[in-house]
């Protein structure tokens, strides 16, 4: 398998999805070598071999560009044996390393996650003469939050080239499949929809006092808290949440917003909240939240909002539900395909979003029904079901790539 990150060295949901899928597959007897671009310890991984493609630690590489930085991506010549400076260099070095790794063993298939590994994936397919599964967690259109014209043309090229040569394509939602069909002209019959999931029993329990002391106190005074956790980037639609916040606060000033995360939009969002006059009610962490802070952010919420403009899947609402917080999800988010007991809105429809927020904050019965029924759904979810589906996809693959075209 070719991937770009694994926990704890991940900056988003991509790493988590790869980790959980591999773990569930390994339990079913699949032997996996997972290639990452960095060299770091993965003490949590004992079910597969993690192979570093480059000799540098994750942090050093991340400073030069991470899995979500496609907009800064450009063509530059790689220089051997020096620290790769940008994503392009990292990627070229990664591809070179995969070229060697691919010949070390006899593999049965190549399974590649998202565009950063897609060039290497084609090389691996060629070296191993084995079928290629291109697993799409997000396309460039999603990252650019523009389904029509958005994104970096270089990245589109890489995606298009690999997707059209893959033997099987896995999309994390029906919405993503539709996008691949309409925007990349991929025939629908080669695309399988395989939703991400969550393992309810692996949720780390809450402990101690909540990290957000201010919010805990305000809740004692009857305030309600709306939470968002994620990268502060255009794809996540947070400007819409802030505009909805303005409408909400006009109706009910006792509703507070916690926006946990960081990203290139941070300062823009701060300015926007100031100019909307909602700074008093909107709290930014300004940093990524991990561990206890991350869990407590879900737990402090009376509701969780995912206002994404484009979200191929989006695991955060499921985590929120796991921590007892009902979710409001934009209709443009793939996760809405696997959970019914949530409120859904179009990301641009800030009046509907504001109406929903006020209603959940003011009607305990609504909040209670939402979370009770969503929890029932949550408890039936499992990565094991996803792994079963993945095995079925593997089973349908041609044994050699010669057979694929016949």
């Amino acid at each position, binding site marked *: 398998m070719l991937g770009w990150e694994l926990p704890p060295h991940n900056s988003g949901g991509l790493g988590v999805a790869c980790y959980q899928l591999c773990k569930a597959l390994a339990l079913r007897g699949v032997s996996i070598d997972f290639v990452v671009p960095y060299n770091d310890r993965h003490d949590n991984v004992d079910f597969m071999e993690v192979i570093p493609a480059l000799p540098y630690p994750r942090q050093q590489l991340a400073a030069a560009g991470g899995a979500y930085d496609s907009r800064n991506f450009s063509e530059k010549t790689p220089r051997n044996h020096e620290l790769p400076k940008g994503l392009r260099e990292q990627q070229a070095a990664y591809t070179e390393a995969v070229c060697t790794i691919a010949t070390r063993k006899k593999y049965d298939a190549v399974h590649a996650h998202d565009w950063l590994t897609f060039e290497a994936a084609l090389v691996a397919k060629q070296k191993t003469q084995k079928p290629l599964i291109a697993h799409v967690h997000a396309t460039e259109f999603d990252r650019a939050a523009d389904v029509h014209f958005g994104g970096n043309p270089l990245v589109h090229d890489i995606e298009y080239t690999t997707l059209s040569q893959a033997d099987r394509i896995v999309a994390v939602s029906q919405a993503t499949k539709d996008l691949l069909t309409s925007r990349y002209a991929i025939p629908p019959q080669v695309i399988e929809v395989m939703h991400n999931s969550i393992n309810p029993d692996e949720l780390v329990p809450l402990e101690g006092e909540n990290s957000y002391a201010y919010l805990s106190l305000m809740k004692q005074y009857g305030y309600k808290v709306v939470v968002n956790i994620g990268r502060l980037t255009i794809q996540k639609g947070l400007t819409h949440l802030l505009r909805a916040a303005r*409408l909400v606060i006009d*109706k009910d000033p006792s509703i507070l917003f916690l926006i946990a995360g960081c990203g290139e939009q941070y300062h823009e969002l701060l300015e926007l909240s100031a100019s909307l006059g909602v700074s008093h009610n909107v709290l930014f962490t300004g940093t990524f939240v991990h561990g206890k802070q991350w869990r407590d952010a879900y737990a402090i919420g009376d509701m969780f909002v995912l206002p994404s403009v484009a979200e191929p899947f989006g695991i955060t609402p499921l985590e929120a539900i796991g921590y007892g917080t009902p979710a409001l999800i934009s209709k443009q988010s793939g996760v809405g395909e696997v959970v*019914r*007991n949530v*409120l*859904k809105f179009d990301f641009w429809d800030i*009046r*509907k979003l*504001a*109406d*929903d927020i*006020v*209603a959940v904050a003011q*009607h*305990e*019965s*609504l909040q*209670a*029904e*939402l979370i009770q*029924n969503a929890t*029932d*759904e949550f408890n039936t979810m499992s990565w094991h079901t996803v792994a079963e589906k993945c095995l079925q996809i593997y089973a349908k693959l041609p044994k050699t790539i010669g057979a694929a075209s016949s």
Partner: protein
Amino acid sequence: MKRAVCLYLHVHQPYRVRNYTVFDAGRDHNYFLGGEWGSDLNNQWIIHKIAEKSYVPTNYRLLKLLEQHPEFRLSISITGTLLEQLEMWAPQVLTSFQQLIATGRVEVLAETYYHSLAFFFSRFEFEKQVRMHREKIKQLFNVTPRIFRNTELAYNNDLALWAEKAGYKGILAEGWDKILRHRTANHMYQPVGTDTIRLLLKNYKLSDDIAFRFSDKTWAEWPLTAEKFTHWLNALPEDQQLVNLFMDYETFGEHQWDESGIFTFLSKLPGEFMKLSGNTFMTPSEAIEAFEPQDFIDMPETVTWADTERDLSAWLGNAMQQDALDNIYAIEDAVMRTGDTTLIGDWRRLQTSDHFYYMCTKWFNDGDVHAYFNPYPSPYDAFISYMNAMRDIKLRVLQSFEQPAKQEHNEAMGEAD
């Protein structure tokens, strides 16, 4: 041998609450009108659609059947909320109902004007709504109902006692197995503790064969024909002389589409059934005259005609529904004291049971989208629009108490108009 089919059709449409947000509350008191043409929340559009698909073609066929077969009878109940909407948006449909009833062979039943569950929350309000319905029926059709049916066929012993006291000759309920045990629904009964009133029980198996299963191609008996149905009726044991077929009127053309052959079935059934001498149709009143009660029926718990549970859980089974119902009846006194008839009317329209049905999460949870009929995207959205309308109602109540004070103030200042 003698056998009668008692066909009863329930005709009803609620005033659905439009997509009414917290931003409308306090600003716009219109909860029920408007919305995009073609939207399932636009009541006027729905009346047009159902008139075309169901009311017009069905009444046309019923009228023809009454002309063709002098023995054909049926009964209907028609809610005040629908009658108002027909007066506004489909007067030709109202005329066709008047024609049906003018034949004297279509009995009109009594119920609550607003198709509400008021019996279980406010006896005073309930009686008021029954009176309003009686007056409306008298005004439009010049008849006075003698038989009572409660919203959703929700029935218990108390209701039967009330109906007897109120002077009704008969009352309708679900022929639910758990109540009947070894007995059949195909007899006349008497509610426990009553003297004169009679109880007619729905044969849910045969009723639902038409109302629910008619166009279901996976059903072993599909396609259902008038011949086959008549055969089933004729095959009943000889002593089972009364078959009560109770269903939504909208079965014809709306729940079961024209393409399914439902209209052909309707047009043929009376003639087919009455081929056998002794077979006939009766109104509930005629059936009460014709058949003696065979036993007492005891229903201490409320039984309805909905779902496999046959209880009220489809309307008050979850926290949102209870919250909404508690709220609407909690403000009864305050609303009445305003004396504002428009406000009282809006409050009553919000009592219609359909509002609470849309908030039901039972089927939504099971993911059974097909069985799930709801004009809102989810039960939660239904609750949100409803409670926003409730906010506005409460605000209007408050404002109406302020007004006299304001008026006096204005008069004193010489500003009264």
